[in-house]
């Protein structure tokens, strides 16, 4: 029976036209521990589908948020981020024509980003399952840590096949740039730039949800 369901799932997957989006986060870390953080959600590749969906009230049984609702949520997130000590120059951009959301800010120390995310979670702007304690940096010892995130497999399994479909072509890219050169790293899934000052991790969102790819990495700097 389980197998039959699997085949039916393949059939449904085939029949529904897939959508895709990319998540990109980037950290530019200076030697003193301060730096720049940016997050981009790019659904531009699916804009034809999204423009059609935006005209609908619901999709897959869920309410389609209106432009004003998204704008207000983003404004709220900006205000929360601005209130975090150590975080400055918070900028957000919302491109409804291309379905791109951008958030960027400067931080005194990377842990400020963790606090910002924690605050967003406590204000229920982001979901309770989103990890917040993402980074750790020790400028004295020149060690930067990208923490391990929990598995979302069980949450993913609970989704309907239509909702799972959303993740099928989604990608995640994480870029970490440093002022100092990289001495070593523990996760070889991150590719290193030729100047040895940056690493990049990219893959399908599904691989990270199902933990086929890991995000944790400990980077030692010169």
């Amino acid at each position, binding site marked *: 029976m389980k197998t039959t369901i699997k085949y039916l799932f*393949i*059939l449904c997957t*085939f029949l529904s036209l897939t959508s895709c989006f990319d998540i990109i986060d980037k950290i530019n870390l200076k030697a003193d521990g301060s730096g720049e953080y940016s997050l981009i959600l790019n659904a*531009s*590749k699916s804009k*034809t589908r999204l423009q*059609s969906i935006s005209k609908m009230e619901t999709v897959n049984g869920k309410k389609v948020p209106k432009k004003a609702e998204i704008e207000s949520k983003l404004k709220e997130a900006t205000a929360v981020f601005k209130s975090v000590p150590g975080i400055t120059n918070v900028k957000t951009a919302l491109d409804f024509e291309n379905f*791109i959301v951008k958030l960027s800010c400067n931080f005194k120390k990377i842990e400020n980003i963790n606090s910002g995310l924690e605050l967003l979670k406590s204000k229920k702007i982001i979901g309770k399952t989103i990890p917040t304690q993402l980074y750790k940096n020790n400028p004295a010892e020149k060690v930067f840590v990208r923490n391990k995130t929990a598995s979302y497999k069980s949450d993913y399994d609970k989704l309907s096949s239509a909702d799972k479909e959303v993740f099928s072509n989604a990608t995640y890219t994480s870029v970490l*740039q440093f002022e100092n050169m990289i001495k070593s790293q523990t996760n070889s899934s991150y590719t290193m730039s030729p*100047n040895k000052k940056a690493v990049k991790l990219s893959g399908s969102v599904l691989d990270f949800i199902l933990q086929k790819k890991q995000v944790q990495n400990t980077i030692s700097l010169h």
Partner: protein
Amino acid sequence: MKSILLKKHLLFFSVLFGIFVLAQNKIKVPAEAVFFMEVNGKQLNDKINWQQLNPILQELNKNSVEKPTWKDFSDTGILKDAKQYHYVTFNDSVKTYTAHLILEDAAKFLDFVKISAKKELDITKKAKYSYANLNNDTFVAWDGKRAVITGIDYTKKLPKEYWEDLPADSTVVVVDAADAVVDSAYAETDYADTEVKPFNYKDEIQYLKDEIQYQKEDIKEHNAEIARMQKDIKYLEKHHKYPEEKEPKVSAETEEIASAMPTEEYDEAAEELAYQKETDSLQAENLKILKTFAEKDFDRYFASDATVEVPKELIKFKDPKSDVFMYTNYGQIFKNGIYDRMMNLYNMGDFFQNVYNSNSFYNLYFDKDKVRLVNNYQHRDPKIQKNLAAVYQGKKNKKLMSLINDDNIGYYAINVDGSKYFDMMYNLFQSSTDSGKYQKELELIVETVKIVLDEDAISKIAPGNGIFVLNNLNAKKVEYTDYEYDDDYNDKEVKKTKDVVVPDFTFAFATDNENYWKRVFDVLTTNKELSEKFSKNGDIYYLKKDPKNSTYIDQLFFTVKDGIVYLGTSLENLGPGKQSGDSSKWAKDAVKHTQSGKWNTQKLLIGLEKEFKSTSEKKALDLFRKNVGDIYFKTDVKSESLETEINYTTPNSSENSLMYFFDFCNDLIKIAEPETPAAL
């Protein structure tokens, strides 16, 4: 003398015939079954190539340990060419699914049941049969020749107050006091018998004895628990802590003593244990009730001969030549399902119950090169059925069907009588008041609507002939933003393009009032706000192209000519196209039927090709191209029903359309299998 002798003979034969009839104790399918299915095993068996099918079935029946429960269908012990009967009955608290099977080999069947159950079966032996529960709600009974599988779902009916206590607002209808809530579970189990069984004190004594035994066991458990707690209290008084736990002995008992741990886990474990205990006890109680229901059913079945008697109402449209016949009573499904209570909460509840109050009959045929499904829909109220039939007997319109042309991917055409639609709706509203609720009010509303609406004028605007044609699927270049990285992983925004599949369609409908539509379109192009979006060029009105618009529809054109209102995505398709051979045949066919449609799936897949980019997607596309056939359907009024025939042509080289599905499954299995390193 002769006549007396003759009378005596007649009397003798009448009595003999009567005895013979009484001896034929047929098994009756309940008249109130909401679903009934008869599988013509002989015909299906003739169409199945078992050698080819068995490995596919095995693959589909892989259990969790990846071992098929049987190697060959004959291992199931079920007689392949015998008729199978399946039916579903439900009332407010009991839902039952029953399947009657004829056995070829009872021993094999028992083995099959044992393997399928994946547990030791607790077999109860009765005088004429044996039975066992496969799980908490499925039971199987068998003798040497026959078997019955029954799945029972019992939900204790909630008291009426539960529904009445739901948050009330102005729309809540007070449930009629006459609708006294009675858990009809026990009454329902007697559905196949028309007579009411007399009270049997012996059964009652046995039931009470069982109950005492159950209560005694419960008391025993409670006493043991109390004794353990008292012991714990004494220990706590003396030592101010729980006794140290010795090295765990892995047994059921140690789980019980888990509560001795004075930690956070202790509370959780104890709570979990208590919860589990309560659940187990509820499940045991539930199983006991279900067993009673199942046993009653089995007693009745095995007391009968093998003949199954199906009420005429259920097989009204059965074709003996069909491979599978099904009947569904949507009215009852709607009424007795969750909707029953839900509908009572809304003013329109009665109306919807009335709309769904229908029977549907399905005859399924696996022909050589096509699968044919014939559905007969019949409303249970003859008056409404007559109204419905009148709606579905509209005038035909040849002009519209000229839109069907050689290049189309598919079409859906409809020829109904719009003016009769109002009569049907009035009737549905008026006959929705069986309970007498708001009868007068509804009559007044219907009468007022009749005065306000000029049905003739409305039906002239759109008499009921229409067609939707999917002309083509075109590729449209869409620009999107992407991010690229340089050697130092600095990102850069870049503009790229990709192809998106967009539909090219035409929707057209007949009108007897062209001026009305021209006025509507003129307003669109002259109104201050709307004219920003709409424009006019001669007789053609159109939605202006918006460069920012990336949706599937760029432009819409509409016009009215020769009594037809056209709306489409391309100018060239706002009128008749090139017809020859096949398309002309389909156009003529579409004129004949109330509803009809055809989809050329191969053309549809060619159009969708651009949406499938990855290797696995392309692989899947190739598979579907190889296997997917065309669909054609038509609806007409026939024998006091609406008859819809759906034909699905099977394109590949399978032996027949039944084997086609299994071959298709086989291909799907292959594509779903992970590639072996050698294959890579």
